[in-house]
């Protein structure tokens, strides 16, 4: 929760992570399916990289929160790193999503990303 609110969480928004089975089902053409699944793996890599970065900052946030004398600059340093990690993950995710989009038809895209699947992931 700490990371979620202070740093943006351990993952880019879950609605941007397509389930592999839905992609396989929506894109029947084997060549395009391979492109789509490769992009999906890139999305997963971006997600995992962000998770690793966020866990690394976890201890720093924890120490700061306990330290009554922690300075604003200390917080800014951690938040700055987390913002940078977050931006990189979002950018990589969008790169992959738009590669995926280019290999899919609007109908296929709609079948994967339209409700109700992502709603299950949302609060």
């Amino acid at each position, binding site marked *: 929760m700490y990371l979620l609110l*202070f740093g943006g969480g351990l993952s880019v928004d879950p609605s941007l992570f397509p389930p592999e089975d839905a992609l396989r089902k929506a894109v029947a053409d084997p060549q395009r399916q391979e492109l789509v699944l490769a992009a999906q793996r890139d999305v997963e890599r971006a997600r995992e990289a962000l998770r690793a970065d966020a866990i690394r900052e976890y201890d720093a946030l924890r120490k700061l929160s306990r330290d009554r004398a922690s300075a604003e600059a200390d917080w800014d340093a951690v938040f700055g790193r987390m913002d940078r990690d977050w931006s990189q993950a979002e950018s990589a995710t969008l790169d992959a999503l738009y590669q995926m989009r280019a290999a899919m038809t609007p109908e296929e895209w709609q079948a994967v990303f339209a409700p109700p699947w992502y709603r299950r992931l949302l609060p």
Partner: protein
Amino acid sequence: MHSAGRSALYLLICSLLASACHWGDRSDKAARKVFDSYHEAVRQTVADPVRSSALQALGADLQPRLRTEVQLLEAMHHRLAELNANYDTPRGELEAYLAAMQQRRRAIRVMLLSARTEAIGLTTPQEWDQLYRRADSFIDWFGGEPEQY
């Protein structure tokens, strides 16, 4: 979650944040429970009535503001999903929306850090330590493992 004897400002904050992510009736009850517990911890730890009242007012002020902020963020998550589901949404529009979401999170950070700074000014080092010890750590209180989030 176990809250007995673990009340402090941070617990209050985090309980509000936790419940705010799923701010239904049940979470509201949980937030109120921790909010009451926070008041009790402040009363027991900070003997000075003026500072004690100020600390309690700080928590009371923070609760609705946090709730509003997180509800806004929640609505933005829904809108982001809708934007992404539209095949024709330009990348720039998604980027701008993600940036706006991050800006909202930064605003919540500022709010929390401001409350923390104010709370530090209202406590002695000993009181701060006592409140924090009671809290263990607000991260631990939520289960301790970042992977859960």
